[in-house]
């Protein structure tokens, strides 16, 4: 068996919450790109792929930035994991819902 020193839960909490933030940003940008032609055009970082290129780039960058910031703050700390996990799952649920076309249409009144 490998011996692993007891690591504070802050590192895990940072990773979980950052994933929730990244997923929610992804969903929110998908919706914004679908609802607004101007935002859709602005998110077309790579024109042949359209807005998906900008949505994925911005979401992944914000996910990594959030992870870095949270990990820096919490890496040596014991944090309230239950609350953070609930928040992360709430954000994840939002992210999944906002990528679901019927839900996107519902929010836009289509």
């Amino acid at each position, binding site marked *: *068996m*490998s011996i*692993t020193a*007891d*690591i504070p*839960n802050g*590192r*895990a909490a940072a*990773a*979980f919450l*950052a*994933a929730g933030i*990244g*997923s929610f940003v*992804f*969903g929110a940008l*998908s919706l914004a790109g679908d609802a607004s032609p101007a935002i859709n055009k602005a998110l077309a970082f*790579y024109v*042949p*792929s*359209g807005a*998906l*290129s900008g*949505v*994925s780039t911005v*979401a*992944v960058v914000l*996910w990594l930035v959030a992870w870095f910031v949270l990990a820096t703050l919490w890496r040596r700390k014991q944090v309230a*994991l*239950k609350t953070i*996990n609930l928040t*992360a*799952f709430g954000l*994840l649920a939002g*992210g*999944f819902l906002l*990528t*679901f*076309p*019927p839900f*996107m249409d519902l929010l836009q009144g289509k």
Partner: protein
Amino acid sequence: MRHFLTLLHGWGAGGIFLVGFPLALIAIAGTTSSATHPPSEREEFFVKRALQALAAVGWIAVTAGTYVIYPWYRAKPPAGTADLAGYPRSLLLSHPDTAWLHSFGMEWKEHVAWLAPILLTVVAYIYTTYGASLARHRGIRATALAFTVLAFFAAGVAGEFGKLLGDHAPVQSPAAAPVTAQAQAGTVK
């Protein structure tokens, strides 16, 4: 070439990703359970590397899908093109029976697929950081397993719709499609 790369994307990277998920779930659960013997260093090392590789395959799949396959899928046909075989998006939207495959299937697939590697990267990080000690970190272990299931769901949606889209409107080079009457008449460039 387009058809081959699309197959590589779907059946290669996507296939490895989908097959790897149940194995990842079993490996994480099995090597971090308080009810079983702790894994050997060798076993733990293998699971860490396998999870990291699976996350890497996920990133390759979504990046290739977005920047290589998707532009071919959504390419607009030149005006007057009658045979849409080389333009999957237009082909699907041209018929009411298949339009939903784009407006629902592709719209969902192209977005939800990106959540899978994000989630699996976190799972790989958690296992690499905590390893077998996850048996003592019950909350972290449970969340990592839930993330693995959610990543599997996202990849499953993408894989299933990828197969349906490929069945109805495979990505292929317009040059591979039969020559249209307009093209023969020289009206399509």
